[in-house]
């Protein structure tokens, strides 16, 4: 029997609603209500639901970008907020809905990748020389099927598919145990979507991570995931 890698227990989250005139808090909008589910090691969970139902908020809570109002999220049996930043970086990584927004527009891709690869070695307390870092970068570029030419380019110079692959490379750099893919295909055209789906399947085989696949496409979730939860109006409808 597999162990639970992630447990989400009674998570509730709301955002304040401000008045337009004086910008005073008038009410709060509940986006997640008592969300509870778990995810086993090396499995894929699909999170389905229409736009605005709270899927991205859930992803951000699991990735520690947002804090829940109540409830808790456990990773390997421990509350995610009790992990030091450095340890948590190698556990959960989030691939944002728009890969372009993940990349600093003023820094070239080479700098962004190098920064992450160096961080990976630093987190594993390994002192490395530039040649080792460069070798690692070449390996990763090969994995995501990108040419080394992209290293000199800036995010705005890349195509949609290239941006998506760079973003994937950046999250894979740290070899996370859990990857959250927040609608990873929404920014791509149909032909690229098919390519990326096969690519994700290959990566899962190679890197052996668990992942949460957030989408509003039911067929895609069924094809791609071992278990599925459906969210509507902030509540889990079916598991």
């Amino acid at each position, binding site marked *: 029997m597999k162990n639970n890698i992630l447990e989400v227990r009674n998570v509730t989250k709301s955002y304040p609603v401000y008045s337009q005139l004086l910008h005073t808090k008038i009410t709060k909008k509940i986006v997640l209500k008592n969300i509870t589910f778990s995810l086993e090691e090396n499995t894929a969970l699909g999170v389905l639901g229409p736009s605005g139902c709270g899927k991205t908020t859930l992803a951000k809570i699991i990735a520690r970008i947002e804090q829940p109002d109540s409830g808790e999220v456990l990773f390997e049996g421990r509350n995610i907020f009790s992990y030091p930043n450095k*340890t948590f970086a*190698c556990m959960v*990584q*989030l691939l944002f809905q*728009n890969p372009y*927004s993940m990349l*600093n*527009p*003023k820094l070239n891709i080479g700098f962004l990748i190098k920064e992450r690869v160096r*961080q990976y070695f630093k987190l594993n307390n390994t002192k490395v020389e530039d040649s080792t870092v460069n070798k690692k970068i070449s390996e990763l570029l090969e994995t995501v099927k990108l040419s080394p030419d992209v290293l000199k380019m800036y995010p705005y110079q890349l195509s949609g598919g290239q941006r998506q692959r760079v973003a994937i490379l950046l999250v894979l750099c740290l070899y996370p145990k859990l990857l959250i893919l927040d609608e990873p295909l929404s920014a791509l055209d149909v032909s690229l979507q098919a390519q990326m789906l096969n690519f994700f399947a290959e990566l899962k085989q190679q890197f052996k991570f668990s992942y949460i696949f957030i989408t509003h496409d039911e067929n895609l979730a069924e094809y791609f995931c071992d278990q599925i939860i459906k969210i509507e109006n902030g509540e889990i409808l079916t598991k």
Partner: protein
Amino acid sequence: MIKLLLNRIVVLFITFIGITVITFVVINISPGKPQDMMDMSTRISFEAKQRLVKLYGLDKPLHIRYFNWFLRVIRLDFGTSFKDDKPVLKKISERLPATLLLNILSLGIIFFVGCTIGILSAMYQNKFFDKLTTIVVFLGYSIPRYWLAILCMIVFGIKLNWLPISGLRSVNWEYLPFVGKIWDILKHLILPVAISSFSGLAGLARYVRGSMIEQLNCEYIKFALSKGTQRKKVVFYHAFRNVLIPVVTILGLSLPDLIGGGFIFETIFAYPGMGRLGYEAIMARDYPLIMGIGTITAALTLLGNFIADIVYVYVDPRVRYK
């Protein structure tokens, strides 16, 4: 990149010509002529005045005089002052270092203190530090510089007697030891530099704060934080780099303010710089000196903007590749 620089140089040259034409026309059509100004201090005859007009070439049409002046300026000859017959370039070169010293120190303080306040206010948004600096910064915005200058002169110079209130050196400066000389200049600079930095610093700190808050809310910052590095590292390597663009623009644009604004400011502090020289030249309708100061100020301002454009290209790769 070279094409971009050449384009900028052509635009700057045209702007420079435009500035000199406007300055020349404005000073020549403004009331009061050089010979009339001399009449205020000494009683001279009509014939003597006519001789002066002829000597200064003021009897020729405006466009001819501008053309002659421009031909001389190309050879770096700005003529001689109507007031004391000293070469204009010599008079300016005596005063320019003091103005540059004041403005470079002010710009340095504006940049470092303004950016630091802006970054820390954004990092600790709505906390005590942010609220305190917001109040100080709005005071800097709203208090007129000349009023603050006079207030500080009364408090620190007259009441407390801590700092000198005029000039750049004491009367006995030449007899002081080397360290004493430097300390004396520094003491004279504290008030003018502090006051001239205060209002510029206020504006920059607000700009940096606003831009930093915008950047810190971007997803790429959240993603950069997710790799487990310290927040301050992400703030400086990622967010501040992007905030540098408006900062460079504002610093470039504040250069003319610092040189132009010196006219009143330097006069209040009796500071021996370009501003005070300009004020005296305008009062005496000393055309060659006014034109000399105007030309050099315009050249420095345009140079400042040109440098800002180059730095802009380096901090924003999107400009470099367009």
